[in-house]
């Protein structure tokens, strides 16, 4: 293969890669499934739909375990996130990554609040037993 042919081939390869980049647009986030929980829902704040409070994720602890298994709660980056935790016995809970620790008392609702500014997947745990209570998923910007 001559030198010119090689250069031509490399040029063609570069063109293919550029075209692929433009077509596939790998830098863009896929249209994300609408987060299950977010604090503001501008689309629903129209005149006819009453702006009801957004659903707040709830973790119900029964004897140190999450009722119905550990769920995944998804947040958008920058959301002011909150999770309510209830338990039938006292517990210490810990949200990894955001490093938030709270005590939970039976009969009371404890709210974990944080700004979802670290992307990734994080566990909410019972601090004493390391039992996973829920999973927080924050998508990239």
């Amino acid at each position, binding site marked *: 293969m001559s030198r010119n042919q090689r250069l031509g*081939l490399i040029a063609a390869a570069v063109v293919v890669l550029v075209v692929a980049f433009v077509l596939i647009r790998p830098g*863009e986030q896929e249209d994300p499934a609408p987060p299950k929980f977010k604090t503001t829902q501008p689309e629903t704040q129209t005149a006819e739909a009453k702006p009801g409070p957004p659903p707040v994720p709830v973790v119900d602890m029964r004897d140190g375990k999450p009722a119905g*298994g550990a769920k995944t709660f998804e947040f958008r980056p920058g959301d002011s996130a909150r999770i309510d935790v209830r338990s039938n016995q006292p517990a210490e809970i810990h949200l990894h*990554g955001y490093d938030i620790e709270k005590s939970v008392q039976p009969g009371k609702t404890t709210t974990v609040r944080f700004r979802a500014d670290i992307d*990734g997947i994080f566990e909410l745990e019972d601090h004493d037993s*390391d039992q996973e209570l829920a999973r927080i998923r924050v998508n*990239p910007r």
Partner: protein
Amino acid sequence: MTLPIAHGIAQRADLPITLGLFLFGSVVVLVVSFVALAVLWRRPLFEPYPWRPLSGFLSRVLSSRPVEILCGATGVALLGLVIYAGLKGQQTAAANFTPTFVYVIFWVGMVAASILFGDVYRAFNPWRAIGRAVAFVARLATRGELPPPLAYPRRLGYWPAATGLVAFTALELVNSTPDDPSTVAIATLVYSVLTFIGMALYGVDAWTTRGEAFSVYFNLFSRLAIFETREGVLGLRPPLAGLTRIQPGSGLVLVVAAMIGTVSFDGLSETGLWVDIGGALGDLFGSLGLSSETAFEVSNAVGLVAMVALVFALYRLGIAGMKILDERRPAGQLADWFVPSLVPIALAYVGAHYLTLLAFQGQAMTYLASDPLGEGADLFGTAEVGISYFMGARLIQWLWVALVVGGHVAALALAHDRALVVYRDEQDKVVPSQLWMLAVMILFTISALLLLLSSNA
């Protein structure tokens, strides 16, 4: 069911790459492979490769006796701390020095150090340091009449290292409580005893080069680095070139298969596919009367061994393809000659899978160093320092794809270069012999991207 986050010590698990990034990465791999075939060089670049000594002063300092003793002593002190903190410290994974040090700083950090600076592990290897110190004292005590060690059996080759690597990764990935500090400490003790037995039988150097799993593992990665010491003189070599000087031996292919296969299993175990397969296996073993914990461990062991075997089989398939053209050379020999070219792919797997573990969880060392036992000490005043998540998922994902594509290109270059040497008198076989190998490498590389796409998806 949700998947357990792989490590109790990791605070954050990675998000999967987007489908777009997966597709684009795959296109890049295919295009690069195709172009590589067309623009390949005719004369080996890496064999023999140039080596240029660095300044004499730096060499003299780095290979001086005090520096050697200092590095060895540091290694021994850290080994001691791993065992002591693991046994005596608080038994909470995240608060104890031992699990984070072993799985993050040692297992992953040393890979990064090896690639950047060459075979630094050799200097810090605590077992080698102890072995040499004991040998020194024993020679003094016996006035030089110490019996020589046994000759290292050829057939043993790299088998002890391959077994050791699979055993270590089993501790991490099969075991249901991998981060339990005392488990890690006891495993370290057991491994130390086995290593000392190996060194006592075959000599410190022979066992370190072939038998000691971590020496072999980090040494393979260090061969990507530009630093190489020859007879105590530090010098520079081209990147990747060091891989051409690996001493072939029985079990070497298995070592490399274990490097790729174990990380593949770690990735696989975070996918929905493994939830189904592992769950079914667990049910099967449970129905045979195993407890749920044992059934979980047995199904993990099956998965781990199966992935190593799969990587081994795929590589041997590439070799079988080479054999179609080459009736003269035995397949085993070809397999040994070409396996170093897979080391960059192994790096891509390790790098992509453990990048954030090192970058983020590695920072935990700042507070664990101040409070290694997790008992509220603050030796260096850093016990309250937190982890900074300084890279966002987007940047991380592009770095992963760059690593995977870069590893693929390096592997192609090495395999072609090796083919030029092996078939130096049969030029017509150089490119055709590598076509199967190319297909196998594309498979490994796209599988790496596929794991990034489906982990935690």
